[in-house]
């Protein structure tokens, strides 16, 4: 009969101390309760409307009670609307989340920040009927057909002001802006100004309409200007700025942008002069690839897989130039350690055997080729090293490291402890020797960890510069240690510490091998392939234990 059941009336009566309420009385009261509630709600809605709101709040109900000369119910006023939760198991039962608060917590809690005072902000919602693209206005959804056309369609009655379809969707300002940026990118004469332009590209909010123009421009120029190294570099910088701009939705244009970036990564020849540091460009592009995958990978599921396929094809094709291999390795490395482990490390041995003749300066007379081979080798080493470093990082700390091992501020490593603890004690014991390995060779470890943390983002700072010796040196295995030493000395880029510890390392690695662990095996394999050069990637504070 009434939506208020008589049980409700009875419960309320009990709660206010009326125990002898007759069931008939409850039955009679129920419809009236409903009527009163509805009446109050009607008035409350009026109050809400006059407060220019569309959500009913407790204060509106208070206002309605006031209107009816009823004492308001105190204690429910709050700034915002209540958040109702659904009671589990009931379709239409809701409750407010009213937690019990410990008095002590309330007292001890720091004072909340004073609420900000009301202010007025002023902006142009429209200028002569056109909404300017400024952060205060709602973002334009996509580039849409000019509004005039819509009006044209809409009006088919007699009084039409017929307007020709508008040719320029872009405002004059935006056109000028685009031209200026394009000019700067092409001219390469004014680096300071170009830097400013990049900042503007990365931060301006009204640029969305230009995105298709920029992607087009980049695609065109990359395909035409493969010989112009500076131009390519500028274009990649533009890509990066566009990616950084928080106001731009670049997703719809990624498919146009990606080929250009990948081209800059794995093209056979970038730039036409010997002096062009195309390695740097490749590194930059690889970082862009990583950035894109990281940000849009979850949205475009096929993005990463397609990219990976392209890169792996480039890597595994022995006919491709070494420069291309280098790009592919860098690209894969930028995609993350799992990719490296799955795709590079599994192919590492055959690939290194292919690379071997190129590396040997005696066999490969062409110095340029030799240099390239070493670059590739360095890239591989770095990829593998970062990968193994990453794997080792997840192992738990030693149960009882002696205080002396914790010297030289190994903050980084210690900071990662919480993750490590997740592994069982059992495994931590198993891996203790390895752990010792991990924690040795502190400075380098920290350094490489830094790299692994920031490499995908830090584009201006190509990482191999940090480890020049590793990249440009070295035969491939410990069996050839003497050769290695010779070549090192020839190249004059020797990493001394690594060499001096080589023998000890061998012993340690063998021990790990005995532990029969996946990573251990991998490490050993890497060590076999690379020799000492992998060691700087292996963080350690406890070298001394084994020395």
């Amino acid at each position, binding site marked *: 009969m009434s939506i208020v059941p008589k049980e409700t009336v009875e419960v309320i009566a009990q709660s206010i101390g009326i125990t002898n309420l007759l069931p008939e009385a409850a039955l009679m009261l129920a419809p009236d309760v409903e009527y009163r509630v509805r009446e109050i709600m009607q008035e409350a809605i009026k109050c809400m409307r006059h407060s220019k709101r569309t959500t009913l709040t407790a204060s509106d109900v208070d206002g309605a009670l006031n209107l009816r000369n009823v004492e308001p119910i105190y204690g429910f006023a709050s700034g915002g609307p209540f958040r109702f939760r659904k009671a589990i198991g009931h379709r239409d039962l809701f409750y407010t989340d009213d937690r019990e608060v410990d008095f002590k917590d309330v007292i001890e809690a720091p004072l909340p920040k004073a609420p900000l005072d*009301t202010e007025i902000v002023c902006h142009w919602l429209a200028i002569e009927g056109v909404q300017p693209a400024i952060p205060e206005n709602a973002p334009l959804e996509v580039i849409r057909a000019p509004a005039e056309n819509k009006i044209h369609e809409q009006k088919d009655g007699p009084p039409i002001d017929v307007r020709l379809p508008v040719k320029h969707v872009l405002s004059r300002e935006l056109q000028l802006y685009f031209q200026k940026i394009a000019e700067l990118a092409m001219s390469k004469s004014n680096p300071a100004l170009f830097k400013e332009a990049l900042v503007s590209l990365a931060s301006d909010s009204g640029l969305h309409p230009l995105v298709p123009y920029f992607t087009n421009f980049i695609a065109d120029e990359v395909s035409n200007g493969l010989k112009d190294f500076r131009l390519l570099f500028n274009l990649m910088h533009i890509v990066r700025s566009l990616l950084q701009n928080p106001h731009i939705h670049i997703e719809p244009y990624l498919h146009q942008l990606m080929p250009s970036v990948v081209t800059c990564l794995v093209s056979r020849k970038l730039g036409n002069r010997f002096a062009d540091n195309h390695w740097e460009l490749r590194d930059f592009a690889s970082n862009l690839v990583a950035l894109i995958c990281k940000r849009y990978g979850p949205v475009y599921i096929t993005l990463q897989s397609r990219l990976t396929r392209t890169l792996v094809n480039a890597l595994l094709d022995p006919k491709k130039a070494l420069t291309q291999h280098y790009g592919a390795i860098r690209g894969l490395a930028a995609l993350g350690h799992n990719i490296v482990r799955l795709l590079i490390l599994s192919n590492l041995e055959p690939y290194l055997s292919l690379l071997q003749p190129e590396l040997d300066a005696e066999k490969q007379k062409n110095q340029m080729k030799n240099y390239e081979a070493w670059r590739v080798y360095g890239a591989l080493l770095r990829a593998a090293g970062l990968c193994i470093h990453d794997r080792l990082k997840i192992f738990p700390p030693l149960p009882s490291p002696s205080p002396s091992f914790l010297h030289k501020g190994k903050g980084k490593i210690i900071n990662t402890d919480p993750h490590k603890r997740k592994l069982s004690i059992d495994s931590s014991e198993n891996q203790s020797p390895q752990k010792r390995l991990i924690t040795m060779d502190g400075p380098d470890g920290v350094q490489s960890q830094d790299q692994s943390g920031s490499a995908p983002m830090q584009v201006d700072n190509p990482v191999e510069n940090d480890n020049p010796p590793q990249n440009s040196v070295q035969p491939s295995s410990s069996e050839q240690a003497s050769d290695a030493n010779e070549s090192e000395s020839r190249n004059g880029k020797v990493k001394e510490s690594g060499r001096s510890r080589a023998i000890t390392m061998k012993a340690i690695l063998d021990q790990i091998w005995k532990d029969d662990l996946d990573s251990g095996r991998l490490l050993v394999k890497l060590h076999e392939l690379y020799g000492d050069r992998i060691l700087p990637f292996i963080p350690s504070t406890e070298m001394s234990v084994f020395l």
Partner: protein
Amino acid sequence: MDPEQINEFVVGYLKKKGFSSAAKDLEAYHHHNNNGSSFTSTDYHNDPELTKLIRSFSQQEDDPTRYREGYSNLRSWAYNSLDLYKHELLRVMYPVFIHCYMDLVGKGHTQEARGFFNSFRRDHEMVHLRDLQKLEGVLAPSHLEEMEFARSLRKSKVNIKISQYSYDLLIQYLQRTKSTLMLGIINEHINFQVYSGQPTPSSDDIEAVTIFGSFQDTANHINQKEIQWGLLEDSLEDRLEKTGGLLSDSEKGQGESKDGDADDSKKRSTEIGKQGSSLKKLKKDKAGNATAKVARLETITVPPAPRVKPELALPVMSTDVEQSILEDLRNRVQLSSVAMPSVSFYTFVNTHNGLNCSSISHDGSLVAGGFSDSSIKVWDMAKIGQAGSGVLQGENDTNDQIMGPNGRRSYTLLLGHSGPVYSATFSPPGDFVLSSSADTTIRLWSTKLNANLVCYKGHNYPVWDVQFSPFGHYFASCSHDRTARIWSMDRIQPLRIMAGHLSDVDCVQWHPNCNYIATGSSDKTVRLWDVQTGECVRIFVGHRSMVLSLAMSPDGRYMASGDEDGTIMMWDLSTARCITPLMGHNSCVWSLSYSGEGSLLASGSADCTVKLWDVTSSTKLTKAEAKNGNTNRLRSLRTFPTKSTPVHALRFSRRNLLFAAGALSKPAS
């Protein structure tokens, strides 16, 4: 059948019909009779027909299921009737439905009434949702008495226009099926206006289906009254047209206008220096100036609005003010469907859901906000412009910037009310603010002294809206007490009380010639009142929900009203007809404003958009429409979405710059 049974029936019947004293008498009489000699005539004792009738009478009256049966039979009959007449017959269903329901409630069959209501409410929800929501709560006879809406429904008859044939069909059906109950309800509560010929197309339903309460006849009657919708003679517009004519051919006039430009540019830059793009604006103003001149020559060819004499003693305007207004009018940008206005948006941030209303002064330099904590805050936009040049740089950092160097408030705080402030309005020169509040008072504030000057007490309930007249001095207010009142600034008692609305009066607006005010109400009507006599001169029926905003066209011929559902209606004041409904908003229309020359209507809504409507074409088209039938009635020109700001207030400045204001509200997650 023995006489005692009969007596029982009779007594029961009398009791049911409310003749309790008669029943008592009868009982006493019978009691007496039984004791004494039986002289009751017995000739009907053996009449079986009569007995049956009496018995059925008492049973029928009792039986609540008859309503359901009768109604559902009638309903299925109506739904199965011929398509041509169906919509007319269906129109009858709604009044029958609500009266059946109220009969059931009135007789105390609460449960049956509820069941009946729920099983058939779906039929009427589309058109009458709000009425149904009101009625749904009525569950006891006492509620019927108490609730105004129900009472007026019970008392009044509904007018339904119906074609002869539909009427015949209906009556035939009712008589054939002997559904006396339905027939009774229809007779009692529906007033058929039968016309000969074919039934009208269903598109005209709106009026036919609205239940007005008692005033259908009076409404028609009232709407016959004459009104003078023209502009005041010797108004500024009037003078402008004259001087405008001078200006175009005399050198003196040109020199003047140059001076004016210089003055004006100075004033502008100080007044609204806030955007930092005043240069652009100046340029635009000049351009607008040129076009305005050209356009003015055109407008003169259009027959101007008739002139009327003022019925109120109007305040004298100082020459300075007059000059500046004239200057503004001269420099007005001519707007049309191809020349759109610029919109400057004032966003209130950090309001913590407390902003109830906002108002913008005529020149856009002052903005007032009324808050639920009883305070009023007035911002001087010129000062804000000086304080921080980076006001436009984003919502996050502006707070620090405006609070800036000396950490002072950027606004003037006006305290005095003791309840949420529901409305605020600036006097035309911007030197006074009026505010109305839930504490039933209206207060007058001076923006120069930043102090409260007068407190007007008169309303008995929260005052929903207050508006200054176009010439200042007088103002109108409206309240939950169902009245609108006219006041003058120098008296603390109202000059006129306009009573007649059946529910809250939610908004009020002055006619440009000051002789009329319009009020919008929760009873879903808009009324026009004569200020001098205090009489209602027009009733506009057609909205389906509470009317929230009103605007009068500058020539005084048209009125726009916006409601809770997002519908905007354009009315012709002289005929009280809706010219066209403007559909497009999907939430409350908080604010409406006509552009200076009346060619555009701007509407601000809770759906976070400002829409511009071309109203010249819509008014012109009606003539064409009459000839070639239905054409596209929508004339929405532009929609400007804000990020997340419901638009509370709109105002076209005298130069046709559109100001809008609203409080930034975080979308509910």
